[in-house]
């Protein structure tokens, strides 16, 4: 049976991915200096984490207030393995991601049985606990002072953090991969099961969906997204502090999801772009960051529940005949 024709904008996997690739390819023409590249790279790295978190919050409807914990473990895992122990960075990144996946699997099994407020509080506690460990284990992590991270080298080619062009290309490609994987997942049996259990756990379970297993799957996947983003951020920045693991960073990630639009993969990139770029162009941002994050979260939930990108797309669609 033939599928009905879909509009270009509505087909995220073909049209959307092509559009994103085009934007990412054209962007360097507009980025006029190293500072702009730097911002773009940070946006891309944050977006990777946010795309993963959006799978959990936006699609599966499960909240995590501790995702910076996974981001931070990825960052510190890479820092310790490649810095202290001299592992090749790529191997360190993969090993950290594997460790984070294992941790998420073990922690997720019990806490994902919880729902709503209880899950939120349990993930908040998990994040604080990871923060506590990283701050306290000074011998390994440098404690509150942080630690330096060697530059990234891939297959013998060293990527210094001053090598903005190469970093931009790497992050752009990884962002495309991250989006592609997420879109594939959403439009697969696993993704449909996640969206279904978000809408009605009861209907999903009597329909044959193992609800607990699917929550665990998406929790682990989103943790791995965060871990990889964390590892790359650590290598790019060259230095990490426990701030990357902190409560505020967890809330930042959630705000990016909410602002961009829950259950919108491209929205996640928009959310990351706004919140990463804002402080670069708003000099007083640092002092006002928590106030702004809080205000954005509340305002979105009251006035713009679908978020920026889906909200704007709705307007565009409404204008078309």
């Amino acid at each position, binding site marked *: 049976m033939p599928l009905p024709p879909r509009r270009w904008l509505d087909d995220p996997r073909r049209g959307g991915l092509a559009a994103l690739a085009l934007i990412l390819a054209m962007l360097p023409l507009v980025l006029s200096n190293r500072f702009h590249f730097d911002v773009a790279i940070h946006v891309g790295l944050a977006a990777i984490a946010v795309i993963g978190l959006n799978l959990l919050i936006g699609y599966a409807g499960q909240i995590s207030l501790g995702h910076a914990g996974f981001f931070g473990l990825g960052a510190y895992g890479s820092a310790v393995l490649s810095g202290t122990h001299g592992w090749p960075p790529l191997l360190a990144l993969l090993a950290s991601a594997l460790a984070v996946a294992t941790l998420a699997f073990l922690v997720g099994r019990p806490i994902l049985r919880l729902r709503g407020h209880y899950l939120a509080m349990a993930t908040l506690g998990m994040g604080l*606990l990871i923060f506590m460990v990283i701050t306290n284990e000074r011998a390994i992590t440098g404690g509150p002072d942080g630690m330096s991270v060697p530059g990234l080298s891939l297959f013998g080619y060293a990527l210094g953090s001053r090598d903005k062009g190469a970093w931009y290309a790497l992050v752009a490609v990884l962002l495309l991969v991250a989006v592609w994987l997420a879109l594939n997942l959403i439009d697969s049996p696993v993704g449909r099961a996640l969206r279904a259990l978000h809408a009605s756990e009861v209907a999903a379970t009597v329909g044959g969906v193992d609800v607990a297993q699917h929550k665990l799957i998406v929790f682990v996947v989103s943790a791995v997204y965060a871990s990889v983003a964390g590892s790359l951020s650590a290598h790019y920045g060259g230095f990490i502090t426990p701030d990357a693991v902190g409560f505020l960073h967890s809330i930042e990630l959630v705000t990016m999801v909410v602002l961009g639009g829950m259950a919108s993969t491209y929205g996640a990139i928009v959310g990351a772009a706004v919140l990463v770029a804002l402080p670069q162009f708003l000099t007083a941002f640092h002092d006002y960051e928590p*106030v702004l*994050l809080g205000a954005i979260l*509340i305002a979105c939930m*009251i006035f713009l529940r679908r978020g920026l990108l889906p909200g704007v797309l709705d307007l565009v669609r409404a204008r078309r005949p």
Partner: protein
Amino acid sequence: MAEFLQFFFSGITVGAVYAMVALGFTIIYNASEVINFAQGEFVMIGGMTSVFLLSAGLPLPLAIALAVAIAVAVGIALNVLAIEPARGASVVTLIIITIGASILLRGLAQIVFDRQFHTLPAFSGETPITIGGAALQPQALWVLGGALVVVLALGWFFTRTLMGKAMRATAHNRLAAQLAGINVRFVLMLSFALSAAIGAVAGVLVTPITLTSYDAGAMLALKGFAAAILGGMGSAAGAVAGGLLVGIAEAMGAGYISSDYKDAVAFVIILLVLFFLPRGLFGGKSVERV
């Protein structure tokens, strides 16, 4: 023994604060089924505001009274501006709203006040009282006494006043209360005002002992929450017992195991309760499960 007693004293002192935070959770939860993640911020506002009013030259009692009044105003504003407009929204939406409020208040405190640690002078001197070889700060008696007064006042309010009975009726069955002519919107507002006041009082009382800072709220919320579910979510007596137990467990953990990881105790308690004792000690509403 003296050592144990010392840990016990510090445990029940912070435990009394957790109990007051847990009471705040309970009151709002019973009125609205919302867990207010900004509960810890009320404690922070109480402490920080009185510190700054005091340093602005106000006498301590007036500074305290004003600090509590400001916290109450913030609580009411939170309800009117953020909770009421989202009535009927999903749980995730409400979580995001109160988390947003928490981070917003923390940010405001950072701007209005500063990013330093602050303390208040102890209300009645700092000469410790020695009991069984352990030292008890006079301020700890203020905290315990204050918590006792709060508990007694709440008990009187909920059982002896019409408004208190209306709040209990609403907690029991919102629709039936509405049909009986109770203004449930006012009950909701009152619940925010009350828990803000209790939180602020706790903040004022404990600041001379534990210090306070703009970002103290999240950890207090986590511990108060641990106390509330340990006692059984929705149960006021449970909140008090849970608070004291969490405080004692934390002090013992810090004393005998590791002071670096004392904050982990609350989280461990949360997990243990959620998995093995979902109704808490006093049989509150069961934790939702799949």
